């Protein structure tokens, strides 16, 4: 089982609660990825997000820099919002990063995005939400599956490519392309039909309830003739690791609270409720917050339901102090990962 992290960037806060610079947030993210690599974490995902509190707006740029500064870790977007971006550009950025990584360490995860801010930002109409996503995914796959530099494609949401060069090609011929989903059944079926690995973003509820979706994914894939080994599942969730559960809960809460206050102002939610936080942080909730033993046990337990091959955590939210993030990454890589491996070997 691969163990990893993901981040949308996390802008630090001053003691009075005001936001510090987004520049610092990007520098912190870069440091966190290098640290994760050095500690032996398997995967780091950079999620496209466009707010002052979460400014990792361009995963491709971040991953290219990280590819040069790391040695073993797999780097990917988590996710790239492809409906409002240009798949030609995404592919080029990630295959350049792949070349810089030495080849084979860079992946793309294609997603829809959980909010709609990229539509006005990049000048797209929400009316075309589904078409944009479906066609741009098709274009991205067409480029990736091309057997030469030259690509031919046509659709309705973007100009056609008539035997045009899209370069460079990835070192190993293709980039892994994952499909991100938040739990819509038809997305799981579609990922299976396309034979793409699927990444579940589980941000609330009980993660083991995703088991029917993974079954749907695998059966849809098998029905479409895809080999079982190409049908991979990963899970991204919120979490935090500290020496004890008490410390983990205390360290993660202020950031969780800040994030929910911000989302609440935007979406008209009430003040966040600590009881909801605590409930999600206990089995079978969605937050993997605890000591290495507890987090490892919960990941291994979920593996019994979903059979996923990668579990990765978003640990930096709402201005979590950088040193606590780095410690959580260390514990995830050096304490949680071997425990998960042991637990799964016992099964």
């Amino acid at each position, binding site marked *: 089982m691969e163990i990893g992290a993901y981040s949308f960037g996390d802008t630090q806060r001053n003691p009075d609660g005001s936001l510090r610079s987004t520049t610092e947030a990007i520098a912190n993210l870069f440091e966190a990825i290098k640290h994760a690599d050095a500690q032996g974490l398997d995967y780091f995902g950079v999620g496209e997000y466009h707010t002052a509190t979460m400014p990792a707006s361009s995963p491709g740029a971040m991953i290219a820099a990280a590819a040069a500064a790391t040695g073993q870790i797999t780097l990917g977007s988590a996710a790239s919002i492809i409906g409002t971006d240009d798949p030609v550009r995404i592919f080029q950025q990630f295959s350049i990063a792949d070349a810089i990584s030495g080849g084979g360490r860079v992946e793309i995860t294609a997603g829809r995005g*959980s*909010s*709609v801010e990229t*539509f006005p930002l990049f000048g797209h109409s*929400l*009316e075309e*939400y589904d078409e944009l996503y479906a066609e741009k995914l098709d274009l991205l796959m067409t480029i990736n599956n091309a057997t030469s530099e030259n690509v031919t494609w046509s659709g309705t949401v973007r100009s056609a490519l008539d035997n045009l060069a899209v370069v460079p090609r990835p070192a190993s011929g293709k980039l892994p392309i994952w499909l991100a989903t938040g*739990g*819509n*059944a*038809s997305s799981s*079926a579609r990922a299976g039909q396309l034979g793409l690995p699927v990444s579940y973003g589980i941000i*609330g*509820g*009980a993660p083991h*309830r995703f088991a*029917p*979706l993974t*079954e*749907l994914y695998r*059966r*849809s894939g098998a*029905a479409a003739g895809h080999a079982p080994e190409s049908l991979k599942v990963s899970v991204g969730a919120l979490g935090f690791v500290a020496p004890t559960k008490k410390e983990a809960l205390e360290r993660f809460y202020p950031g969780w609270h800040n994030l929910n206050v911000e989302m609440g102002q*935007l*979406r*008209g*939610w*009430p003040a966040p409720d600590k009881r909801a936080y605590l409930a999600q942080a206990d089995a079978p909730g969605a937050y993997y917050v605890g000591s290495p033993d507890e987090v490892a046990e919960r990941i291994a337990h979920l593996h019994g339901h979903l059979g996923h091959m990668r579990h990765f955590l978003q640990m930096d939210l709402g201005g979590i102090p950088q040193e606590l993030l780095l410690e959580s990454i260390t514990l995830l890589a050096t304490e949680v990962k071997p425990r998960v491996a042991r637990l799964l070997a016992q099964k």
Partner: protein
Amino acid sequence: MDIGAQAHTASRGTIGILGAGRVGTAIARLAVAAGYRVKIATSKPAAENALIIEIVTPGAEAVDAAEASGSDLVVVAVPLHKYKSVNADALAGRVVVDAMNYWSVTDGDIADFEADDRSSSEVVAAHLSASRVVKSFNHIGYHEMEPDSAAPGAADRRALAIASNDAAATEQVAAFIDALGFDAVDAGNLASGRAFEPGTDVFNGRFNADELSVKLHTSLVAA
């Protein structure tokens, strides 16, 4: 049909569900568990959904939208910006539960719902003009539906609000809600549906029937 009659009878009637997304499939599972015959459809032909339904909502039948629309009670849970793709003629005369929300921060602005200050269900009802529209199920997260459902009389049972201009339809949907595991609280006519739209206390919380009545009342008085 005796929708919402005594628990665990096989003759509860047929529920049609338009939308096999997060909400549609959660309601379908609850309805199957409550003993209804459940027909679920998307905009795609039934055959394309067969595997999804078999695995995600075992016991429900994947059908075409026209067939689901002919059920005793029909739940509409499609993305709101597609509400006009729901065939109004097929739903003429039916009791239709509108589980949809207008929530521009997550779904973007939709002109039809920005035009005036009608509740979103009034706009939907203008499209489904020959149907008996009831607003409900919109203010509970799809992932809360199954864990929060409880037997009638359970302590602190979660309650769902209902709004409709049709008293008989309200009664029918209240019985359906009860069978699925929630108390039902009548908020009044469709216009009152705004008391549990996104941004309200009701939308944001989890309440039992007494609490919900108070919240709805406060919200309607303030409006």
